[in-house]
């Protein structure tokens, strides 16, 4: 191993690090470490002056390795790698020690925290000495885009991309476009008709020459990497026979939407047993047919709407489905205008009216004499058939929170505001395009705040309710954001791919083929002539599984080599 000149920079992060970690002591400690040429501390290493300091030191002092002890590498590794690149140093000659998220923010004893920071810095210093210069490759970016899902999100994204002049492959599982939005009548809070929102888009999509709409179809395979995905789609033709088609795309937008909660899972509500208990989607159907009625055809005199069916509960989904409150208020308006004398009660946990115009809509709904009854999470109302002699069909018992009374309210029709949940086949899609799901099954974004439509897989974007419950404006915003992100990349023509991937040393590979089946991306191919395995670097996503499993030590996980990790182990065990 050649000797090197390492620069160590200790970030104070204002006081975030400095208040718990003795940065001066850390500098003094770093200076004692092997091959460290200089060590410094600064208020904010990620600031421009901080980065400039690194650049200047590299150029003036000939540093060839850099360690920054600061926040999480997930936050600023890219920032500092860029600084190295600016200074003319290979960006991979860099390592971060996470002394903020993993140290100053989680410990309360300055002595112990400083000691731990020293260990982490030592680990980084020993590791960086073994870093190798890695070269990034650039690959072509196919301008075509695959959009999975033909709901409002998919339609919107497809149109934006097609309008910019690129080809879109729109895959829809159903026989028609529109998705869940096509199932509803009016939208809250401005009472626009869903039909109006959709029709124009569907028409433009079907008429567009650049959008290839595939109905009754599904993506069955997706291979490759950003800029170079090969998609296989199973399309059913008019006879219902499946036929496979393959095409290249550069990017993928997943807009597969949601499914509604199965209301019969909550026995309290008698859904499926009581004829006049309906889900919000069944109610939407009544609204679209223009007649709100009971199972026997009579007009209801008392309509009750129950919120959070499947949402915000421990047993089902802990999250809020975000659209049901406003939809419920919309029902109150629609019921009152269709049946003026009808009494509407709205049985809720909390009224979430966070969006534009929502609070005003809520106020207006109370003015049409909606009776709002509050129940407690986990203490659900119970619906039962009314007693003979009652003038209503059902009675709902509620432990009403605002009055503290246990009450019974008459109802002729009960509408269950079923929440949104991740589609039951979401995991198949996740697996297909290699993105993650959270514990509720929603697709996970790259960063919940700063990068909400990208995913951890380059070139795969998520839009709309497949990522989490959201309303139409948010869904459309995400769809257009995904489209914009893709168009920006397509405009640059080529794309740089990460230099971190696995590599087989063919001189050491015995062709045992243990690694072959381990790669989830089939990035390892076996050369039957030379009897060696080989990693297709562009397809490799650098998980390192093959490197760990290779019994001969023939596979190197670049940037996570055994030698680097051993050095770090030795380093942190100060």
């Amino acid at each position, binding site marked *: 191993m050649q000797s090197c000149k390492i620069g160590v920079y200790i970030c104070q992060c204002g006081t975030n690090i400095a208040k718990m970690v003795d940065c001066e002591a850390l500098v003094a400690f770093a200076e004692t470490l092997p091959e460290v040429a200089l060590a410094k501390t600064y208020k904010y290493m990620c600031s421009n002056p901080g980065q400039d300091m690194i650049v200047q030191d590299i150029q003036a002092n000939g540093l060839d390795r850099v360690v920054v002890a600061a926040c999480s590498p997930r936050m600023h590794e890219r920032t500092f790698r860029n600084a190295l690149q600016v200074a003319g140093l290979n960006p991979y000659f860099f390592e971060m020690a996470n002394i903020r998220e993993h140290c100053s923010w989680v410990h309360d004893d300055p002595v112990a925290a400083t000691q731990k920071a020293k260990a982490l810095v030592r680990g980084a210093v020993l590791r960086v000495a073994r870093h190798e210069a890695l070269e990034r490759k650039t690959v072509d970016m196919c301008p075509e885009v695959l959009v999975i899902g033909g709901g409002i999100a998919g339609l919107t994204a497809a149109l934006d991309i097609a309008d910019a002049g690129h080809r879109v492959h729109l895959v829809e599982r159903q026989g028609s476009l529109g998705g869940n939005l096509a199932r509803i009548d009016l939208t809250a809070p401005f009472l626009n008709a869903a039909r109006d929102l959709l029709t124009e888009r569907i028409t433009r999509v079907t008429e567009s020459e650049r959008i290839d709409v595939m109905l009754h179809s599904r993506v069955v395979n997706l291979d490759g990497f950003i800029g170079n995905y090969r998609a296989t789609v199973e399309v059913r033709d008019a006879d219902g026979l499946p036929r496979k088609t393959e095409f290249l795309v550069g990017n993928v937008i997943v807009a597969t939407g949601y499914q509604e909660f199965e209301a019969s899972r909550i026995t309290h509500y008698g859904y499926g047993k009581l004829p006049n208990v309906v889900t919000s989607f069944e109610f939407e159907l009544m609204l679209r047919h223009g007649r709100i009625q009971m199972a026997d055809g009579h007009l209801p005199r008392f309509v009750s709407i129950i919120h959070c069916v499947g949402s915000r509960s421990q047993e089902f989904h802990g999250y809020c489905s975000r659209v049901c409150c406003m939809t419920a208020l919309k029902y109150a308006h629609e019921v009152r205008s269709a049946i003026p004398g009808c009494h509407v009660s709205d049985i809720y946990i909390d009224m979430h009216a966070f969006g534009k115009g929502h609070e005003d809509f809520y106020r207006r709904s109370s003015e049409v004499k909606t009776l709002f009854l509050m129940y407690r999470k986990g203490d659900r109302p119970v619906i039962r058939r009314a007693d003979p002699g009652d003038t209503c069909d059902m009675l709902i018992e509620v432990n009403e929170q605002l009055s503290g009374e246990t009450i019974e309210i008459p109802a002729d029709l009960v509408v269950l505001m079923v929440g949104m949940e991740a589609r039951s086949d979401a995991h198949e899609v996740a697996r297909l395009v290699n993105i993650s799901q959270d514990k509720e099954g929603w697709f996970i974004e790259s960063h919940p705040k700063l990068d909400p439509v990208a995913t951890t897989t380059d070139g795969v974007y998520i839009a709309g309710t497949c990522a989490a419950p959201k309303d139409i404006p948010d869904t459309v915003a995400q769809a257009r954001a995904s489209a914009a992100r893709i168009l920006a990349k397509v405009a640059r023509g080529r794309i740089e791919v990460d230099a971190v991937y696995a590599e087989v040393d063919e001189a050491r590979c015995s062709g045992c083929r243990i690694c072959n089946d*381990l790669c989830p991306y089939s990035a390892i191919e076996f050369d039957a002539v030379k009897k060696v395995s080989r990693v297709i670097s562009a397809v490799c996503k650098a998980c390192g599984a093959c490197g760990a499993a290779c019994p001969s030590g023939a596979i190197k996980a670049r940037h996570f080599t055994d030698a680097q990790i051993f050095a770090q182990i030795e380093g942190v065990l100060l």
Partner: protein
Amino acid sequence: MSFEPRIVGFLCNWCSYTGADLAGTSRIHYPPNVHIIRVMCSARIDPTFVLKALAQGADGVLVCGCHPGDCHYTDGNYKAMRRFPLLKRVLDAYGLEKDRVRLEWVSASEGQRFADVVSDMTERIRPLGPCRIRPGLQADMAER
């Protein structure tokens, strides 16, 4: 001064390392005994790393990955899941106390869980005292 275990934590980048970051951003306090080494996936964690850390003087080794089914690389954590019991059998044969090496699934949203795991592990190792592997090997020539 009481014994402070030195634990090496191997955390996958996408779930557990992010979960540990979340513990930080949420200011969830936990003992400073785990020193985290980031790998891209728990499947990268070669059992050699665990043995290396023990031989190098670690009092414990924590391996964390995404929950089964949630791996960023589809199924990398299943590889960790399969290797771990075999590694444990070997460590048993070496006579290592069970609590010193641990595999946990920590998702990106489980900052609290990560802190709990670290606290629990630290408290379980503390009564075991320092791991005798490294001092033992260092003394072997003298005590042969």
